[in-house]
């Protein structure tokens, strides 16, 4: 093999390796490919999920334990399905609530652990839920006062 071709092989090989490493790094760490991460599904029903999106985070005690998989309407309530890491066990009486990161941040599902001995299996439901804080109605109540309780004659 001519030395010229060896140099060619080396530089092309180096380029391919660098390029593929960069591509792999991007798609594995940034693309959030869940390779080898065993997950199971849990669903929950909320009165409203305003602002929650697919792939929103699911957290317990501020640690990410999964993501929202899909949001559907069922009986005029929002039914969300979450995929949770396999190593996190959720008790039967856990409470799921929708919260906001900061004031204008993204919505996420926060799960507060319960005390029951029975854990939720794959495909199970969290029965206790809390709808998100409706900041708009809070503000309007703050600004305009609570008019209904006050009678005009009194």
């Amino acid at each position, binding site marked *: 093999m001519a030395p010229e*071709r060896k140099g*060619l*092989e080396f*530089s*092309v090989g*180096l*380029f*391919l390796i*660098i*390029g*593929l490493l*960069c*591509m792999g*790094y*991007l*798609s594995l*760490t*940034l*693309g*959030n*490919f869940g390779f080898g991460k065993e997950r199971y599904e849990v669903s929950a029903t909320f009165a409203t999920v305003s602002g929650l999106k697919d*792939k929103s*985070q699911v957290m317990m005690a501020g640690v990410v334990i999964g993501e929202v998989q899909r949001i559907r309407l069922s009986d005029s309530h929002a039914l969300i399905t979450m995929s949770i890491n396999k190593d996190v066990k959720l008790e039967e009486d856990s409470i799921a609530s929708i919260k906001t990161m900061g004031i204008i941040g993204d919505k996420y599902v926060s799960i507060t652990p319960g005390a029951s001995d029975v854990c939720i299996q794959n495909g199970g439901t969290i029965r206790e839920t809390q709808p998100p804080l409706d900041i708009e109605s809070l503000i309007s109540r703050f600004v305009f006062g609570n008019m209904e309780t006050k009678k005009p004659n009194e």
Partner: protein
Amino acid sequence: MVSLIQSFGAYALRQVFSAGRMGLFFFYAVRGIFLPPRKFWFTVKQIQFIGSKSLVVIGFTAAFTGMVLALQGYHTLSKFGAEGWLGSAIALSLIRELGPVLSALMVTGRAGSAMAAEIGIMRIEEQIDALECMAIDPFSYLVTPRFIASIIALPLLTAFNDVIGILGGYVIGTGLLGVNAGAFWDGLTSSVDWNDLYMGFVKSACFSVLIAWVCTYKGFYAGVEEDHYGPEQVGRATTEAVVISSIAVLISDYMITSIML
């Protein structure tokens, strides 16, 4: 008056002819992928020329783009007290827009111009006619390897560009501007998802085909329209190749973004 109409008609016909020639050129070049002779080592050499030798220049562009994005983004985001979003701002703009476009433009300037000039000189020296005389298909001999090489090289260069750009932004953002490193990486990993990467790679794949197509076409038919083959025609072909493929990259970037977003 009649001559005006005549010259307009001749111009329109020339444009139609050249559009058809460009389409056929693309067809022959793609057909060369499936037909022998397969020029394996020549393709590898082209990958070296387009890819390996562009690494340094793309590294520099990417590093400084990331660094300047960090400065600019910090300046704007700090007005809202949202410095924590710096990482995701840099990563998203690099992965979706700047990475594919800048590496395509650098490759056009570095390798596309050389492709057009090389093939154009072969045209004026009648080497392409010689190939045809020897019954060697000049498309699969000269054009196809360059097509394959640029389709392989450009997406990899884009990935390299993204990574170096993010690193440059990280160094300036956390080192110089004092953004929290944890917030930088966390914002970056949580806001970039597979769709953004996919969009970036679709873009770079399209750009690679465009660049190879325009640049080899311009070189291959250097001087054919005037029926005069000289150094001036090669120079013009090279200029046109760089200008047209840069514009094509930017226009198609807009189109792909509007379709995929």
